Each structure stands twice: as structure tokens, then as C-alpha cells.
């Protein structure tokens, strides 16, 4: 299935854009999605951390991706 991914901060810079459309297998988990993304953008592996938020919430790695999910890549936060 096709999913739409938002990227922020250094992840956005590494990926070259804020919005990315990716083709992933149905029933992929967050963990699997992360692996697919890192394969495509190996520089993301150098980050201190990288997590996924779905529908504006942090989620566990076992969470299954659904077609309508709003997916966001969250590199190490540094607000404040």
C-alpha cells in the first residue's frame, strides 16, 4: 500500500523533502517501516534516535500501519 510520510528537522533535510510517498507491504509494523525508510536514506541511521508518530501520537514499534494513518518521522527533539 501507499503511505504518506511527514518528516521534520534533520530527517526532513536528509530525505530532501517534508512529504514523502512510500510503497510498503500491507500490514507493515512501525518497526518494519523504519527499516524501509532507513534502507532508502542510510544517513538516518547516524541519528541519536528516530521514532515514528502516528496520528500525532508516539506509538510502539509493533503498531501496525493503516492506510489512512498520518505518519511522521521524529528525529531527536530539541525544543525549549
Amino acid at each position: 500500500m501507499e503511505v504518506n510520510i511527514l518528516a521534520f528537522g534533520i530527517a526532513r533535510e536528509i530525505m530532501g523533502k517534508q512529504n514523502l510517498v512510500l510503497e510498503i507491504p500491507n500490514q507493515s509494523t512501525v518497526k518494519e517501516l523504519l527499516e524501509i525508510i532507513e534502507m532508502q536514506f542510510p544517513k538516518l541511521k547516524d541519528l541519536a534516535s528516530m521514532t515514528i508518530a502516528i496520528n500525532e501520537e508516539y506509538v510502539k514499534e509493533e503498531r501496525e500501519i493503516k492506510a489512512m494513518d498520518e505518519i511522521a518521522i521524529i528525529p531527536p527533539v530539541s525544543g525549549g
Partner: protein
Amino acid sequence: MIKITDQPINITEVIELVNASGAGAIDVFIGTVRNKTQEKQVTRLEFEAYDGMAVKEMQKIAESAKSKWPVQKIAIYHRKGVLEIGEVAVVIAVSTPHRKDAFEACQFAIDTLKQTVPIWKKEVFEGGEEWVSAHP
């Protein structure tokens, strides 16, 4: 009383939001742009936010502070966009009946914000730039 804004933050406005007749103490934390970090001269900062989620996470911090301390009111404002030296990036104001709780709740709020809220800061130096905390 949670806000992400690309306009300068009015500190007085944030403080007035937490006025409460049952409060005897207000603690206010103001995060400003320093002119240096680890001996490098900073020219400016650029803040980027995942707005919707950042507001949600800030609301969680406010709820959590209220559950842990007798907080009367709490306000959290975060700036985004380009900030020059001395400009205000974040203001957190907390009112409580007694002062110890105001300090603790306010410190909890800024400490947690720095860990959980999806906002990213890029430091721009003379001849370079760096996303803060991005690399180990």
C-alpha cells in the same frame, strides 16, 4: 493556554493567563537564544515544529503537571521560525497556592517539553549549522 506561534511571544500575556485568586505563587520559565553553545558563536536559531502533535504533547505536559502538583493554571507558549540572539523561544508560567509547587511544576514542564515535544532547533554559526542533539 498552549500555543505554538511564529510571532514574538508576549511574556506578560502568558503570565496574565495564569492569574488566579487562589494562587500565591507564580513561577515563570523563559528560554532565550544564547549567543554561544559549547564555545561556538551562534548567529541565530531556527525552530521547526510538528504543530498539531507539539500542541498535543504540550497539553499532556499541562495535564500531567496538574495531576502531580496543586496547579491552579499553567500556560506554555513556544515560538517557531527564525530567532535572533536574545529572543524568547519558550515561556512556561505556572500558578500554585505555595511557591515550592510552582518551581517544581514549572521545572517539570520545561524538562519534559525538551524530551517529548516534537520541536527541532537548528543552530546557525558563522560558517555552519547544526540540528541540536541530532547526532550521538
